[in-house]
């Protein structure tokens, strides 16, 4: 049985050009953040009705995906599936870099990003946000330790326990992220216990989709062999996660539809919410759930091109889902006076919140994605994250469900 | 060669320093004169050297008392500092200028402060020169000054607390 060999990707001019190209987007993102901070948020599309906008859509997506990206390593270390073990290092790296990208966007959008030290020293422990700050930073530390266990031969015996710790930590982390919305009593689209587990399942789906795309991208870039065996296994798993997310979305909406008090917000999201309804049905459900399932489990599932396209569709559907949850949830007016309608208010009470994404917000979000990608590429250049070969003959001894 | 380069660099530095100095300038910051004195013998609520060294500590402590406990006495109140130290004349220097009282030292020491993102950087006075203490209420300048001088209530408490810290 051949041992899996890990090696850094090649450097040289192509590498610098790639990082430089991604770096342009990072610089643009930083510029957008400076523009927003210097002039104040009035230059963005966010306002007093829709307080979290496009940057938060990207940031929460990246953070959720970060936790899910570690799934591949967890399946290897915690559940003992041998075939995932060679992928574990890249999985850990991606988990850290996606989280860094998401947090960067979140911090740079703050009204006072210069007070990050305040955020890390003053804690209100009743706030799930405060817990999240510690969960996110702790996650990076735990995954770093996990990677160290995997990459240092002497520490290999401890990989399993580190992997277990990382697995539990990321379940708590994603539960905390979902609870940001789940704990809000004020708005009808939130205030639901299902938000937390729904976010956990979403993390599985988005994280794996990104992982597959990054895997295919890095192996194509570095010219290393990537066999079908591993891709088929991963894409089948992705299909399961997409279906699971779809199940949670159905349960969430069915529950809301049952109670008359929530009919307003459901009607808004599913029927006459304009852009939110379109994003929900066409992008989140259609492009992000139904179409990828057909592609992945149908005849097209054997083609790398279609696997890649499916992953991209899942990502786009995921972004749309975040948009509907975060922005659509804020847009629906709060029910302050049941049975009455607001006919006049200077603060848009009772009216659907107006939001139009602005360029600086979008550029900041893309900047976070670029930061995650650049950090991943640099990481694989600097340390031994990537197996030299994932061809079928390398993977075969690990297949057939053989547990390590 | 290196020695020539070194002497050339030194010449550039000296020229630069010389160019910085303008007529009447010293190397120390220009600190504007306050609008009022605390007493005949003392300029501010505490001796000048004490304030220079500890004003941030006093301000931070008092801000928590004001914010969380509603104690709005004049001792170490930022508003009171501004009332005494900054002129409310329309052409008086505002915060971004290095001639503003706080900024005069802070630009010299290169310590950024963000107090005036929220706090008013000059006192609010009405046409008669009284301090405006709410939307429609004023307090004559002399009354404000007397209140500051007679403010011994928490001065004693803060004084003993500071001694305990030392």
């Amino acid at each position, binding site marked *: 049985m051949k041992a899996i060999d890990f090696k850094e990707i090649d450097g040289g001019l192509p590498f610098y050009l790639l990082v430089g190209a991604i770096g342009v987007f990072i610089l643009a993102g930083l510029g957008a953040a400076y523009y927003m*901070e210097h*002039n*104040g*948020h*009035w230059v963005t599309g*966010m*306002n*007093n*009705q829709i*307080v979290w906008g496009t940057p938060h859509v990207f940031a929460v997506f990246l953070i959720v995906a970060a936790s899910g990206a570690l799934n591949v390593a967890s399946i290897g270390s915690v559940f003992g599936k041998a075939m995932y073990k060679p992928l574990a290092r890249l999985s850990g790296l991606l988990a850290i870099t996606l989280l860094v990208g998401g947090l960067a966007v979140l911090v740079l959008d*703050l*009204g*006072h990003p210069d*007070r990050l030290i*305040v*955020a890390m020293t*003053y*804690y*209100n422990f*009743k*706030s799930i*946000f*405060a817990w999240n*700050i510690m969960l996110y930073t702790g996650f990076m530390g735990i995954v770093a330790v996990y990677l160290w266990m995997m990459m240092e031969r002497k520490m290999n015996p401890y990989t399993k326990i580190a992997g277990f710790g990382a697995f539990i930590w990321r379940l708590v982390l994603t539960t905390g992220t979902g609870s940001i919305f789940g704990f*809000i*009593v*004020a708005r009808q689209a939130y205030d639901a216990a299902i938000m937390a587990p729904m976010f956990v399942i979403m993390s599985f789906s988005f994280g794996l989709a990104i992982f597959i795309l990054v895997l295919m991208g890095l192996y194509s870039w570095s010219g290393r062999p990537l066999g079908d065996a591993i891709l088929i296994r991963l894409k089948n798993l992705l299909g399961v996660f997409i279906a699971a997310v779809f199940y949670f979305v159905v349960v969430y909406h069915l529950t809301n539809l049952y109670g008359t008090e929530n009919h307003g917000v459901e009607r808004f999201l599913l029927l006459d919410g304009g852009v939110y309804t379109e994003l929900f049905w066409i992008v989140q459900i259609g492009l992000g759930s139904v179409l990828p399932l057909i592609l992945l489990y149908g005849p097209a599932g054997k083609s790398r091109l279609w696997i890649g396209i499916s992953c991209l569709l899942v990502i786009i559907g995921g972004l749309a889902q975040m948009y509907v949850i975060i922005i659509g949830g804020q847009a629906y007016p*709060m029910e*302050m*006076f049941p*049975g*009455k*309608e607001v*006919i*006049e*208010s*200077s*603060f848009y*009470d009772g009216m659907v919140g107006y939001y139009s994404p602005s360029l600086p917000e979008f550029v900041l979000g893309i900047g976070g994605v670029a930061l995650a990608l650049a950090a991943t590429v640099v990481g694989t250049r600097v340390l031994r994250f990537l197996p030299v070969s994932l061809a079928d003959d390398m993977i075969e001894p690990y297949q057939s469900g053989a547990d390590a | 060669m290196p020695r020539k380069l070194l002497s050339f660099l030194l010449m550039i530095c000296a020229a630069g320093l010389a160019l910085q100095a303008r007529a009447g300038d010293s190397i120390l910051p220009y600190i504007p004169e306050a609008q009022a004195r605390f007493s005949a013998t003392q300029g501010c609520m505490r001796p000048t050297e004490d304030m220079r060294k500890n004003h941030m500590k006093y301000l931070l402590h008092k801000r928590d008392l004001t*914010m*969380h*406990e*509603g*104690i*709005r*006495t004049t001792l170490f109140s930022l*508003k009171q500092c501004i*009332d005494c130290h900054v002129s409310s004349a329309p052409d008086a220097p505002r915060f971004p200028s290095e001639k503003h009282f706080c900024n005069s030292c802070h630009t010299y020491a290169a310590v950024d402060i963000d107090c005036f*993102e*929220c*706090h*008013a950087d000059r006192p*609010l006075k009405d046409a008669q020169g009284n301090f*405006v203490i*709410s*939307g*429609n209420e004023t307090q004559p300048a002399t009354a404000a000054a007397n209140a500051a001088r007679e403010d011994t*209530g*928490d001065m004693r*408490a803060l004084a003993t607390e500071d001694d305990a810290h030392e």
Partner: protein
Amino acid sequence: MSEDTGIDVYRRRFLGNTAKAAAGLAVVTPAVFLHEVGQARPADQPVTSQVRWGMLIDSGKCADGCDDCVTACKTENGWTGHNRPLSDPQWIRKVKLRDKETGYTQTLPMLCQHCEYPPCVDVCPTGASFKRADGIVLVDKHICIGCRYCMMACPYKARSFVHEDIHDQKPYAPRGKGTVESCTFCVQRVDSNRTPACVEACTAHNHGAMVFGDMNDPDSEISRQLEQYSSRQIRGDLQLNTGVRYRGI
């Protein structure tokens, strides 16, 4: 009969003169305390939970088209718009409602409700959103990082985010870019034993729709009115025990 009429006339004159004197005092001197605070707190003593500040708003007396309270708050606290209504701050606003079934319309001012269990305080990661011992909910802008989570969480949409640079703030009401703000019950006035600007304006213009006072003091005007008249909290099902109560909704 004429004796009765004589006594009535004397009493009427006495009552009338007293009322005129009281009205004169109340209107003429701006510095008069229009609502007596039980025991005035000395300036150098911390606030305690012996006092709980509250407000009672009578929607029936609130006139359509009147925004004296809003104007007074703007003047007192110095928040103005930049002609960008979507992102301009609003500490207090008038809301006009119509019953969907009956067509009955009414107006009322909407402001921070100063809840006893404020969701905004629960969710603030740094603790900048806090409740003072006497019940006033405030934002400590020194440690506010501008994350706007409290704005998401507030059931009354009471909070505003400052979207632009601010200059010429009122020295007694600091506010700045990048932090969140909301009605403070004019804490700078309350701390010197006066009433919020909105209540003062409503009373000074003889609308009488707003009453402010100590809900823990059974002899205060607000406590007496709360005991006498039916009132309720907005979104009372959330069990936040708000400090602002409404009559007539």
